């Protein structure tokens, strides 16, 4: 009986040890503010390869979207107005399409007249890196590559985004 109890305790301890990394992961989600934005490189619809870390020194607004996502359209239109601004210190806007098909992403971007690069995450590897669970997902990354704001499931409210940009000196 004592042996059974010991075995049960060892099994419970092992299960706990195995479950711990998952628990730790959820408590330190990549998307939480003030954490470094994971670096990635993706091909854009115009054929260039763009790496996030090469934008250090610039404020970056990163937006994950897909052509089948209804509210992404509004989010992208809003970001387009930021990208089309004439201010010299306007942020860099990067869109990441999770469509998995460069052709579809490109035609969707063209139909919206996007004035910022559309990156194609064909295998959703970057989507997984950023724990994208809902679309659209917008992130504000400061000049040091640190996430300073996230907006999920709906377009980032213009006022909130403007205020966040002002707070980081943009």
């Amino acid at each position, binding site marked *: 009986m004592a042996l059974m109890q010991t075995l049960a305790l060892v099994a419970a301890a092992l299960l706990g040890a195995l479950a711990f990394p998952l628990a730790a992961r959820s408590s330190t989600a990549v998307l939480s503010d003030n954490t470094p934005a994971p670096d990635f*490189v*993706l*091909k854009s619809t115009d054929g*260039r*390869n*763009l*790496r996030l870390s*090469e934008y250090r020194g610039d404020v970056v607004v990163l937006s994950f979207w897909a052509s089948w996502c209804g509210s992404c359209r509004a989010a992208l239109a809003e970001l387009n107005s930021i990208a089309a601004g004439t201010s010299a210190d306007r942020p860099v806007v990067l869109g990441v399409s999770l469509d998995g098909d460069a052709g579809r992403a490109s035609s969707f971007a063209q139909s919206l007249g996007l004035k910022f690069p559309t990156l194609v995450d064909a295998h959703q590897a970057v989507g997984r890196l950023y724990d994208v669970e809902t679309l659209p997902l917008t992130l504000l990354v400061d000049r040091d590559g640190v996430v300073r704001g996230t907006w999920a499931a709906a377009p980032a409210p213009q006022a909130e985004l403007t205020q966040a940009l002002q707070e980081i000196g943009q």
Partner: protein
Amino acid sequence: MMRQPPDSARRLRWLAWASMLLVAGGTLVAGRAGAEDPAQQTRVVDQDVQDLKKQLIDLNRDLFKLEEEILYPASTQVAVFLSVNVGTFFALDSVTIKLDDKEVANYLYTEREVQALHRGGVQKLYLGNLKAGKHELVAFFTGKGPHELDYRRGATLSFEKAVGAKYVELRISDREASLQPEFVVRQWD
């Protein structure tokens, strides 16, 4: 007879001492800051901060080297480097490396990275471990070739991994006679 501690253990001990020294240095800086006039204090603190920064960079470099030594010991280490010599006939987009038919690296190059390679930079594309014996490395290069045409080429190297570290270089160069790019895989002795 006393056993000598392994190299990595000695290094770790040394790093622990260095960290303690850094902390002690920081305490000293704080102590000195309170003793002199403000202008001099600022200069002294600034100098001390610069010294500490330098020590931190050195410490970080040593940690990096130590990590590499532990994860990739010389007996099993294999490293693949990429260089570009002129490269006017080929605009590099990506490189994929297969070792013994298993994909181990896939790298997409940005414009800035390609420029750095053209200026003479050498990139460490892959670092890993391999058992001693015969192995095969296949590298696939994709990009734009002459006349802006999509270009994909492969280069293969069969090599014997001995006890020491193995270094392999992938080199992209121009073959002037045929106006075509050339992809060479060679071992460093």
